[in-house]
């Protein structure tokens, strides 16, 4: 999912960091829908273009924000599969 958009984002990140640091970019395929101050504006731009289809929205920053969900990481809740049968 979003392979093309993610590859395009990685390819252009250094350039975007120079011009749009901290903004939110919305990407469909290899088309940039715009650079936005808020994530809501980026989501609206994506929905305007593809409705409920998928599109990439990501903040332009050097280091990605950390996601910490111990319930998933420790296997208390399984993120991608059913728990083992007891």
């Amino acid at each position, binding site marked *: 999912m979003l392979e093309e958009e993610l590859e395009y984002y990685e390819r252009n990140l250094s350039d975007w960091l120079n011009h749009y640091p901290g903004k939110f970019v919305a990407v469909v395929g290899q088309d940039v829908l715009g650079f936005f101050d808020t994530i809501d504006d980026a989501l609206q731009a994506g929905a305007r273009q593809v409705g409920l289809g998928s599109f990439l929205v990501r903040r332009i920053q050097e280091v990605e924000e950390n*996601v910490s969900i111990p319930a998933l990481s420790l296997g208390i809740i399984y993120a991608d599969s059913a728990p083992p049968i007891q």
Partner: protein
Amino acid sequence: MPILHLQYNDQDRTVDGKRYRLSPLSVLHEKGPCIQITSCVASSIAEQLLQQGIAVPAPLPGIALIDTGASTTCIDMKIAAQLNLPVIDVVKIASASHTSIVQNVHPVMIEVVGVGIRIDIPHAIGANLAPHGLAALIGRDFLQRCTLFYNGPTGEITLSI
């Protein structure tokens, strides 16, 4: 100001099948702070769909567990599929059984049933929560907009915005 106040109640059975009432303290301790919610697509996307005359999928009900250890809210992946939630990013999550797994990210709005607390979570992570009876894990991205009071001795929680 919307306020949710809950005191937990449940029943169990003895070995000979007699029902008995569990104390609120033990229900909250064993099940955790669970709340009834509905989930639907984030409001910014819903507004845009309505402007285009596209039907917005109806909200789906479920149970959410408040998880103060989670930085980010998670939504059950089957509910995300039923709601047609767009995938707007992916994240890698470390797991006990894998080095890391890639999960989809969805923009969702969560409403706490009955009190009018509605919060947009633009980066909710899809996870397989249904086997645990959960529609969502409420993380700190939701809680940063709320006041949560956990009263262990009385088996009560209060959530407000």
